[in-house]
């Protein structure tokens, strides 16, 4: 069994680093819209406690790669593996239940739900979201809800948003809503968190605040895929960086290696 590497050749099993199966692996992803190729043979892998940044100018295919991994965009070719399980044939909701959570490029908080309800919606209470439990299973979900409320309050405390617990999410600032989205994704205790431009529209203070939280989550073992337009943001927070251009991988490595790559610099200067 061959062991694939970043951008490596195809293999029949997930990438392994030492004794560890890659937390997330995407192999040879291809997506075309008509004759327009959006993603061409992109492969990547992500380990636990790691932030992999994906950068590129507008139209580079960053969000499409994110969509292919999360399931919002269907792959023409390629495979996606999560903790040794192939997930590219699964619908979006099953990928999420398998442990792949995501945030969106545009704010996607549930506006007319309170902050606490936003967080509970992301928790394991989703397993009880059926008519049967709604009518007959209160004794079963109520205990779980109490635990999840405690968990949510702990998260709100960590993110310093506890005072907004019972406010509608749309009454928070843009940065606070971003944090609510991240907390909501974390409530499901994912293995991998896909962050699609989480810093867009934020000021420098909020970017650093979000970044500090991401660093803490990495320390706690979470693997994160950070899709960003802003190379400085990715350079500051990611462990490894992959640069895309016109749907292809231009370079990958450390932030410094990628940002000093001549091809990448040319693409950014053109963009």
């Amino acid at each position, binding site marked *: 069994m061959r062991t694939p590497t970043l951008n490596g050749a195809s293999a029949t099993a997930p990438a392994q680093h030492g004794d560890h199966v890659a937390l997330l692996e995407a192999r040879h992803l291809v997506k075309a819209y008509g004759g327009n190729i959006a993603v061409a043979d992109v492969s990547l892998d992500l380990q636990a406690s790691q932030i992999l940044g994906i950068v590129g100018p507008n139209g580079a295919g960053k969000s499409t790669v994110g969509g292919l991994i999360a399931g919002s965009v269907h792959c023409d070719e390629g495979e996606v593996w999560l903790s040794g399980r192939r997930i590219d044939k699964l619908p979006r909701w099953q990928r999420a239940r398998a442990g792949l959570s995501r945030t*969106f490029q545009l704010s996607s908080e549930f506006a007319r*739900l309170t902050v606490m309800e936003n967080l509970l919606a992301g928790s394991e209470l989703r397993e009880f979201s059926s008519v049967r439990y*709604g*009518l007959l299973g209160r004794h079963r979900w109520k205990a779980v809800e109490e635990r999840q409320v405690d968990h949510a309050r702990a998260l709100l405390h960590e993110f310093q948003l506890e005072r907004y617990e019972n406010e509608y999410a749309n009454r928070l600032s843009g*940065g606070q809503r971003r944090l609510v989205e991240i907390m909501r994704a974390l409530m499901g205790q994912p293995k991998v968190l896909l962050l699609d431009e989480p810093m867009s529209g934020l000021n420098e203070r909020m970017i650093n605040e979000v970044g500090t939280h991401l660093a803490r989550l990495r320390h706690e073992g979470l693997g994160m895929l950070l899709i960003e337009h802003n190379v400085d943001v990715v350079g500051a927070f990611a462990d490894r960086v992959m640069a895309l251009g016109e749907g292809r991988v231009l370079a990958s490595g450390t932030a410094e290696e990628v940002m000093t790559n001549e091809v990448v610099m040319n693409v950014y200067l053109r963009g």
Partner: protein
Amino acid sequence: MSSAFQAYLTSALLYVLLYTIASWGLNLQFGAAGIINFGFIVFQAIGAYTVAIFSIGHSGLVAGAQTAFAAFSLPFPIPLVLAVAAGAAASAVVGVVVLRRVKRDYQAVVLFVLALIALYVVDAIPGFLNGSAGLALIPQPLAPNAAPGAGYDWAFLGGVAVLAVLCWAFVRALHESPYGRALRAMRENDAAAEALGYNLFSLRMTAFCVGGGLAALTGGIFAYFLTTWSPAGWGYEETFWLFTAVIVGGMGNLGGIFVGALVVVGLQQAFQYIPSVGSSEVGVALQVGLAALLTIVFLWLRPQGILPERLHRIYGRPRGAIEVAPEATEEPEVVGAHADA
């Protein structure tokens, strides 16, 4: 109180209760799950015809010189239970096609067209459900005779009031559960809800079926109370009256929807005292136009309705003073040093 006034009063109150129950069903679909069901009235009609078919019997068909594809004479409440089952089952069939394959805005169009097709089919095929004349002589449940009088009407109303309380408890339990929260999350942002692991099709289907079942329940009760049911009673405009009740009363607020139903039935009753202008069609057009105008005014000036959807606080924890930070609009600049753990 004269018997005529008692009959009027019980009838008006019954309409309020049935509009309320039906609107709770519509609210579950529209207010909670975000499904715009412009064919809602069809499921009420399914309930009414089911009660008629399963209670009228062959003797009823013969006595009324009417035709139907089938007729049984089952005792109350079996026809009503079958009506709810038929409404939910029909919703499941329609839902498989509409909710899986068609996107949200187009769902509204497809369901509206479905309502028109159903109406025209029933109207055009007399042997199916007696065409435009409809089915009459539907026996009232537990009635001592064909004209049981005011006492029976009050008892009937009392029974429906008890049923309305049970329906309120039923819908409220769903609203307050993780299922209700999931529906509201899906309403707010379906892509985000799916990304959290919610099966959107399953959520929509169940809301659609429960709403269809409630619609059928009210249709069945209407058929029992009126003892007749025909296409004239379930035109597409009836769906818009229910939407008016939901929007005016307050989408997502069960008490508000009761208020909305009061407003709608009050308006319908008020029209009876306005001198008729032109033909009866003009009167109906004016009524529907007023309902539409009222809906537009509320959507424009008070979209949350008379009683807005309430804030779902968890465990009633004290509400903190809100300090909304200013929106960050400036483009981020160079970020500081690597924020390592």
